[in-house]
């Protein structure tokens, strides 16, 4: 096992420690999980990733003892929880699964209130907490509180599932392929929203996925698991991409490791391009001047709250018969914490060479264009070649 860089604050005591954790299912000859030791530090997202059958889900389910370990110990906040009451233990850990499993017969509010009710909170406190969480996941409490799960889209159900897991503010969140059942575009958005949430919440998260790209994007630290949950490498995504510990890891990362770093770099980390902008009420002359005053060839129209609305080019201005509000292209938006991979994906999908980047309130921050992404890719490939030649990677 490779120990990671000690970049994260207090490394003295892990929040979760798995010690020689072993599981053998009845009637099987081999251990599904064999002598796994793993330390997870507070405030980190740790990804368990591996091929199917590697025992990653079994490992996750042993942490909240949905599967009881055959041997080994589990420590939470320094306390040995291997033998404590498992129902009480689970109330200290949020749990999100791929199928979400919202209770279809109770309202969104009551779904979210599950654990607070188990903990015996009073009504006002529960109600206030439910509303707070709905706000947090960007769903209007008045509109959604009394709805039922069947009235939600897949993405909304997933958000409610996360809110439900966070309800009693547990220090730990266990997530088993939480985004796998969702279409790719919504998935990217939910991932970015979740990372945004995590910057506020600083939960300790154990996250299972089979998708190395998701692992690289979401993880502060990745445990790549081989058969029987053997840790092939436990390190930061940067280190795993730059220096795979074994042939297995290299194989698992797959080809194009340098391009996978597109999943590591956030849009906000590369220089955003400043683009000429105008208010949506600007007239043709103002817009023409703005386009001619820069080399970008188009203008981004913003509304009163500086939210990007449409792109207008010189060509669009020539349709003099049509109101300005109906020409040009609608602006596609990217969050600042979206990755370059998301940005490239968005550009390919919308067939536009640039995407507007917005802050958490939806206000314009800048533009990321295809040249920026291409430059980042070039830099990554050069780095990779340098590593191949045995030089130190310039990061």
């Amino acid at each position, binding site marked *: 096992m490779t120990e990671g860089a000690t970049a994260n604050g207090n490394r003295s005591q892990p929040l979760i420690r798995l010690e020689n954790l072993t599981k053998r299912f009845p009637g099987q000859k081999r251990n599904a999980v064999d002598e796994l030791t793993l330390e997870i530090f507070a405030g980190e997202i740790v990804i368990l990733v591996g091929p199917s059958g590697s025992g990653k889900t079994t490992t996750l389910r042993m942490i909240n003892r949905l599967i009881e370990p055959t041997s080994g110990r589990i420590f939470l906040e320094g306390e040995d929880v291997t033998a404590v009451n498992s129902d009480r233990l689970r109330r200290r850990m949020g749990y999100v*699964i791929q199928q979400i*499993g919202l*209770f279809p017969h109770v309202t969104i509010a009551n779904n979210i209130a599950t*654990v607070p009710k*188990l903990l015996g909170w009073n009504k006002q406190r529960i109600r206030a907490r439910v509303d707070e969480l709905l706000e947090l996941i960007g769903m209007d409490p008045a509109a959604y509180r009394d709805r039922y799960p069947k009235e939600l889209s897949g993405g909304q159900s997933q958000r409610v599932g996360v809110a439900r897991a966070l309800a009693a503010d547990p220090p730990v969140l266990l997530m088993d392929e939480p985004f796998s059942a969702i279409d790719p575009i919504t998935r990217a958005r939910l991932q970015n929203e979740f990372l945004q949430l995590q910057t506020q919440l600083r939960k300790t998260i154990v996250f299972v996925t089979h998708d190395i790209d998701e692992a690289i994007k979401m993880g502060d630290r990745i445990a790549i698991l081989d058969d029987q949950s053997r840790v092939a490498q436990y390190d930061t995504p940067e280190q795993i991409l730059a220096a795979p510990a074994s042939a297995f890891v290299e194989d698992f990362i797959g080809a194009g490791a340098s391009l996978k770093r597109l999943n590591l770099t956030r849009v906000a980390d590369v220089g955003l391009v400043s683009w000429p902008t105008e208010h949506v009420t600007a007239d043709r002359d103002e817009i023409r001047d703005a386009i001619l005053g820069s080399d970008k060839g188009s203008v981004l129209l913003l509304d009163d709250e500086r939210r990007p609305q449409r792109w207008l080019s010189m060509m669009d201005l020539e349709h003099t018969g049509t109101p300005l509000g109906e020409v040009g292209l609608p602006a596609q938006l990217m969050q600042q914490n979206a990755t370059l991979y998301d940005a490239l994906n968005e550009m390919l999908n919308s067939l536009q060479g640039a995407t507007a980047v917005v802050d958490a309130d939806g206000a314009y921050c800048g533009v990321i264009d295809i040249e920026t992404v291409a430059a980042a890719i070039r830099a990554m490939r050069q780095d990779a070649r340098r590593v191949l030649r045995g030089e130190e990677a310039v990061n």
Partner: protein
Amino acid sequence: MGEFLHYLNFRKGHLLDLTVAHAQIVLYAIAIATAISFVTAILVYRHERVAAIVLSIVATFLTIPSLALFTLLIPFVGLGAKPALIALVLYAMLPILRNTVVGLRSVDRAVIESAQGMGMNRLRRLAKIELPLAWPVILTGIRVATVLIVGIAALGAYVNGPGLGEDIFAGLSRIGTPTALHLTVSAILAAVLLALLLDSLYLVLGKLTTSRGIR
């Protein structure tokens, strides 16, 4: 036809008494069968093989011809309401037990896992998650059982049980006389109306007791 209406008018008090007695024994039987089925279903639904065995045992009750079953019970409990009630409970068990087992087993695994993962113990999961979600299926079983035994209960009169069977058997034993047909037809009509009434009561009950989220 006019003669029949005249008969109905003349006997309406008596018919109503019989119908109430009929409804009573049916509902008692349903209540007892539901209680037994619930306990049995909760004990067995998680064990596929045991559930299958129990269901096939209960299914054999239904294959016993009803008159034979009523008669078979006489040596044990004598004549009257008792053998009728016991036989009706046995007949009502299959639909209720089967639907309760099926209903509980068909609850989405992910829903149960998430409940368990949030720290709901077994009893609470059953009461708050599994039974409410299985309820529409269970209620359908109870409804089918009710309609089924409204018919069978008429045979209870054979062992001196209460209900509309009294008039049906009275009519059958007087075949050839003018009142025979009146007696039988009026009792059958009352039984059919009772079945329809109970059936629609269940529909209303289902509406009132099923969560809007799973309708």
